[in-house]
């Protein structure tokens, strides 16, 4: 028997013994774990295959001799034979070239991964899910959705309890405060609260039908308190004479004429979210990022705060 084969067997035996010691000899063991078993099986086959391959080529070096015509080039005395290109290799080479051309012209350009494409797919999937899930949502559920949107988007200015954080933003627990009513009467307003351009005139365009004259400072004072006080107290006559023509007897607004100043409605809130708003406190930016359902939900939530 060749000495080489003997060495091969000895090395295999030693390596497998070492494997056994390190696995079975330690406290770990296989523990019946499939991953451990696979790892050991891999180690065993690696040892055997490695030794077989090494033995094969060392043997080949010992017994093989080469012959054939040498190329005219040599590199520091090391030459090369003029051998034919192996057929399998040549076929693979050609196939790779064909594949390369396909990939360059069609494969990559047509099927390229795109980060934005993935994003668009994500958004489309999410939106369609949102639509089917919340299509018929109403009542309590809608208010809940509105609250969560409110806490994500609106609380930064309006505060967690929607009180406007000491005047930093509008207090949404009531429809309108005195300061705002006064400001709107004096300066007019054009906030697209009905979803379209429908400006309210300033004080120079507000006639008190009771007196037949323009509204006065004292009247503004009184009617502002009246409106801010949920349409009650002194000033009902001024309201009836000046404001009711557009805002309605009860202050709930008239379709396509003027918005409700007595209560919030989901449509009103939606319109504010769509167009933004400018008033005595400052500017509220528009929230285009919300979809219609979310706007409706916020409207329902704000309306529910004022029940």
């Amino acid at each position, binding site marked *: 028997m060749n000495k080489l084969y003997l060495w091969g067997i000895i090395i295999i035996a030693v390596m497998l013994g070492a494997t056994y010691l390190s696995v079975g000899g330690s406290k770990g063991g296989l523990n019946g774990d499939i991953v451990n078993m696979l790892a050991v099986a891999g180690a065993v086959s690696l040892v055997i295959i490695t030794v077989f391959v090494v033995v094969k080529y060392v043997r080949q070096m010992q017994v093989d001799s080469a012959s054939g015509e040498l190329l005219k080039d040599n590199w520091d005395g090391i030459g090369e034979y003029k051998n034919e290109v192996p057929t399998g290799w040549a076929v693979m080479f050609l196939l790779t070239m064909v594949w390369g051309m396909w990939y360059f012209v069609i494969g990559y350009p047509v099927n390229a991964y795109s980060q*934005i494409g993935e994003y668009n797919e994500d958004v489309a999937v999410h939106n369609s899910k949102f639509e089917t899930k919340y299509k018929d949502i109403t009542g309590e559920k809608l208010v809940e959705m509105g609250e969560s949107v409110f806490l*994500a988007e609106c609380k930064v200015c309006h505060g967690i309890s929607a009180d406007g*954080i000491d005047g930093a*933003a509008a207090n949404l627990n009531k429809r309108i405060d005195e300061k705002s009513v006064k400001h709107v009467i004096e300066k007019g307003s054009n906030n697209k609260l009905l979803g379209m351009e429908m400006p309210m005139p300033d004080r120079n365009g507000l006639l008190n039908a009771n007196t037949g004259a323009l509204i006065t400072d004292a009247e503004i004072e009184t009617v502002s308190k009246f409106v801010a006080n949920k349409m009650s107290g002194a000033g009902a006559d001024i309201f009836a004479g000046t404001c009711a023509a557009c805002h309605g007897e009860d202050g709930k607004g008239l379709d396509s004429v003027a918005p409700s100043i007595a209560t919030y409605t989901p449509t009103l809130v939606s319109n504010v979210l769509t167009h933004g708003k400018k008033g005595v406190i400052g500017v509220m*930016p528009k929230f285009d990022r919300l979809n219609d359902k979310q706007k409706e939900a916020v409207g329902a939530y704000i309306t529910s705060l004022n029940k």
Partner: protein
Amino acid sequence: MFHWLEKHPFFFAVGVFVVIAFAGLVEILPNFAQASRPVIGTAPYSTLELAGRHVYIKNSCNACHSQLVRPFKSETDRYGHYSLSGEYAYDRPFLWGSKRTGPDLWRVGNYRTTDWHENHMKNPASVVPGSVMPAYKWMFSNKADINTAFAEQLTVAQYFSVPYNQSVPMKDGTTKVVKMGGSVAEANAIALEEAKIIAADMKDQDVKDTVARGEIPEIVALIAYLNSLK
């Protein structure tokens, strides 16, 4: 040729580099050049906005706030459209940032307003309960450096062809001309005009008085800059 190359390892290495780099050159460079052009709606910074940008950098706002909206639904829901590289064409240097102790600010102009910034910079916790951001009260008294902003405008207009005093297309189909003064005095006058518009929406009487006197507090410049981020 190849025999010669094989005998000269240095030139061989150069040859290998050229061959490999060529693919990168033809694939990456044209795309890159195209993507870095300003997109429609991107206008150069005005004098006051640029001064505000300097305030932003001076106070290391970029250490806690990024300016890059990534293309994920969770981000675009919160901040708006994901950022495009062309939108940064006039940012020198860009302030992308990689750390978000606070929120991203790249489109903050879309959803925060002058008066909100004013309240927030005076006392962040008053409008954002639990905020860890410090107050920046000195911005209400420090004066913005308009001269440096003007110097930067002049430089970028001359060396990078930033289109000041030229019309740039906006998203709604209109065009916009961002003015740059011809002299230091003119630049200061332009900045003051912009500052007056911002100050009109602010509550702080000191700030209003300062602007009325013809000086510009840092906070006004900073708000102008933040409002321009859209």
